[in-house]
């Protein structure tokens, strides 16, 4: 651990160029004011710059490492998109500026809406949800509103495959629905019989990804859609995995009524160490009136904001993560329709190539008879049995090889799993180097399992103790830390 910014601070120290002269506040009521200044760090500008510059070096990132984190689509984030969104006219625009002085911004959003409508086959897209999960929330709320508007008030069950991402059931709950899991068959596709058994008059809808979280294309998606539709439910497409089929298959054609896209995945906007993202929702004819606002429309007098007629309303104070939407637009423009198709194609090629090479190297692929879409699962259950090395150990050891680990223990269905997504922007050489690293760790697991179990060895921290973290909560710095002894001696 490096020293914290608080350890660097000293009373009275200032980054003076950032500190304006004080002004009188005599006319403010004493009772509204704080008695003590907040304990913010007091550092010089150089100290802050050096501290955070150095801290950044303790991260793995796309710009510095291969980052095959399944379900996260860690592809190259074009710097040009970042620059486009950083134009002063965009950065300095107040969210409530009148439409008359916002035509450039509105034109961008309108163009993005159209691109997303085209690529998904949906009738209307609302750009406002601020991440995938908020898109899901919008979608489920729309489904509920649709049923209620038709007087169909008993539908409060949301079906999700057992492999669903955690946000799907959590979203259903947040919308006041009851979650019902549907089993997935041994071939990785949804168990059709289980689905038939699950649907009924309480079915509000089904949420699913395609390709699924197992990296497999749900082959009977049309049948799934028919079953849900026949039961009176609607279909929600979790677009987190769209990268696999971008430009190749439209969710609307598969039978989905509503969806979200993770622009911070498929559309290459940077994930920022946790966010921001953007999760636009698209809807077909039935659900379009319920979309969250605002949406941009084009009129003879220029672009205007509008709210859909039966809207579920706004989900954020303004209109969503505008800056992310602009980055996504820039990316989409640089791809063009041809480039979009290539994304799906090469993401799939990379995944299948990597899966095949790992299989040849002796790894167990979870669904060896299936095509990998843009990602696939390796299970290390055998290694755990034979060497006592878990997927977690394996992941930590990979970090020592200068690559980020794949997603571990998701989906929960497959034991000791790695969900591996190379993305289309990585070269064959990088993938080959990753295969070499996997092979090395495999050999180490056999010959020197303790080395793997105690990994990582080359990073700023050794293996960190999660249990300790939860048991002895230490969620903020304090001047005299009780738990870990002398702060100042632990730098480096």
């Amino acid at each position, binding site marked *: 651990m490096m020293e914290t910014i608080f350890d660097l601070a000293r009373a009275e120290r200032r980054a003076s160029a950032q500190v304006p002269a004080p002004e009188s506040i005599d006319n403010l009521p004493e*009772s509204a004011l704080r008695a003590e200044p907040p304990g913010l760090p007091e550092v010089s500008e150089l100290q*802050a710059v050096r501290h955070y510059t150095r801290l950044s070096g303790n991260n793995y990132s796309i710009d510095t490492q291969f980052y095959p984190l399944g379900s996260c689509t860690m592809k190259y984030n074009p710097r*040009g998109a970042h620059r486009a969104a950083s134009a002063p006219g965009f950065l300095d625009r107040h969210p409530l*500026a009148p439409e008359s002085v916002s035509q450039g911004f509105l034109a961008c959003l309108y163009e993005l809406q159209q691109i997303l409508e085209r690529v998904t086959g949906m009738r209307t897209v609302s750009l406002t949800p601020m991440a995938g999960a908020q898109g899901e929330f919008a979608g489920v709320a729309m489904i509920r509103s649709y049923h209620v508007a038709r007087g169909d008030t008993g539908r409060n069950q949301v079906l999700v495959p057992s492999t669903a991402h955690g946000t799907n059931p959590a979203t259903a709950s947040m919308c006041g629905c009851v979650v019902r899991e549907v089993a997935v068959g041994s071939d990785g596709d949804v168990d059709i019989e289980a689905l038939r058994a699950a649907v009924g008059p309480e079915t509000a809808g089904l949420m699913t990804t395609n390709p699924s979280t197992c990296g497999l294309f749900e082959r009977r998606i049309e049948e799934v859609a028919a079953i849900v539709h026949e039961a009176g439910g609607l279909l929600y497409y979790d677009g987190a995995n769209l990268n696999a089929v971008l430009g190749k298959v439209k969710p609307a054609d598969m039978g989905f009524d509503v969806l979200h896209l993770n622009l911070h995945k498929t559309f290459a906007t940077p*994930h920022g160490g946790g966010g921001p993202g953007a999760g636009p929702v698209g809807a077909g004819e039935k659900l379009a009136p319920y979309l969250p606002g605002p949406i941009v429309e084009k009129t003879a007098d220029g672009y205007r904001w509008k709210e859909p007629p039966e809207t579920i309303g706004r989900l954020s104070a303004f209109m969503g993560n505008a*800056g992310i939407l602009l980055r996504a637009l820039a990316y989409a423009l640089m791809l063009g329709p041809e480039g979009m198709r290539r994304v799906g194609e090469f993401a799939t*090629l990379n995944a299948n190539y990597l899966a095949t090479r790992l299989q040849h190297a002796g790894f167990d692929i979870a669904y060896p008879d299936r095509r990998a879409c843009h990602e696939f699962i390796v299970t290390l259950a055998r290694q755990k049995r034979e060497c006592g090395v878990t997927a977690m150990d394996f992941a930590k050891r990979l970090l020592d090889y200068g690559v980020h680990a794949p997603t571990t223990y998701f989906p929960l269905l497959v034991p000791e799993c790695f969900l591996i997504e190379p993305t289309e922007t990585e070269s064959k050489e990088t993938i080959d180097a990753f295969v070499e690293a996997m092979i090395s760790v495999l050999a180490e697991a056999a010959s020197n399992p303790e080395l793997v179990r105690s990994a990582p060895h080359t990073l700023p921290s*050794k293996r960190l103790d999660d249990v300790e*973290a939860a048991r002895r909560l230490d969620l903020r*710095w304090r001047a005299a830390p009780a738990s870990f002894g002398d702060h100042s001696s632990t730098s480096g």
Partner: protein
Amino acid sequence: MPFIPHTKADVASMLAVVGAADIDELFDEIPANLLARDSGDGDAAGLTEMETLRRMVERARADETGPCFLGAGAYDHHIPSAVWDIASRGEFMTAYTPYQAEASQGTLQLVYEFQTMMSELTGMDVCNASVYDGGSGLAEAILMAVRAGERRAPGGRAGGRRRASRSRRVFLAGAVNPLYVAAARNIVGQQGIEISQLPHGDNGLADPGLLKDLAEPPAAVVVQQPNFFGLLEDVDPVTDQAHECGALTIACVNPLTLGLLKAPADWGDDGADIACGDGQPLGIPMASGGPSFGFICTRQSLVRQLPGRIVGRTRDLDGKPGFTLTLQAREQHIRRAKATSNICTNQGLLVTAATIYLSLLGPEGLRNVASACHARTRDLVAALDLPRRFDSPYFHECVLRLDRPAQPVVEALAAQGILGGLALGPYFSDLADCLLVCATEKRTAREIRQFADTLRDAVRKAA
């Protein structure tokens, strides 16, 4: 093929390994009819970066305006150059959520520092690693309060202190940002939670007396400081009165003003229970409203109800301190349908910027920026020479009354390149002749004069 590094030779050798004749074969599990219906856009190639920038920068330029006197939840503050120079370093910007703690100590330590700074500003015990924005943040705060009430034994004491409410209703005491309220309503409404407004007094402030006569105790009372009208609420009695009736107090605050204003934890006798708000003033460009970030701070006793990620300090195998995500059992990826929230991706990069901002400003800087905002707004109010709608003390926004509907005046000002404030009619029907104006530390005397002159002209012309 922009951003795709494959050469023809690569493709051939990769397909050979896979054992496929061509890339299309890799899609052979997809029903043909789905694939056949292709995009129909043909094969148009993408634009180059140069062409893309040309198109977008031209549009951006069209939207550039003169000085901004609009606030209402987004504020035009100075952002030290170092903030984004560092926040946009690839190592911060292109990392994912820190799932592999050892390879993410940069982000994790930074968030830990952020949690500390926000705890210091609000006086609270803990802070999360962000939610989406101020609006959805208010919704999450309300959901937290309702959950907390449900979990407390009926008749017990909130935060271990007093009789708790299991209500699914919350009250807004006074003027809370209507944009936040709308978002919160749309979100919590899905769970049947109701948000009711208590009218503000003639002075524009919350009336704590109204909380005394509630038929049924609410789960929480929300109060905003400074309130939507820019006025300083008398937060102590509101907080105490809310607690008195068994409700939690949710403080909706502008973190920048906390350089100067009383920390929510110090409101009333026991302090607010939850503090939420939007972090945009802390080094985040207005950027049309997003991305910015929402934050939620609370007492230690409520930490398990807190939505979103939380970073904790722990030790590594050598016993050395390090950081990791903690309390994940609250979150969707573990708890699924029973999670405290569905939030997954948050607003991490903006937290990065805010943390650097707060480090550069320090306690004195933040205080002085806040006082400069107040001073410039006083200058503005003096220069515009219009009657104030409410005579309570204001901070850095103020409601002024025109002699006519405000919306057309705002439009006329915009045509002159001035963002002259928010016309309140669309939000408060009785305030259609009112303008909510704001001046930050960035506004100069010349800009204020320019606004005053333009406004006079606009009003004269219309007369």
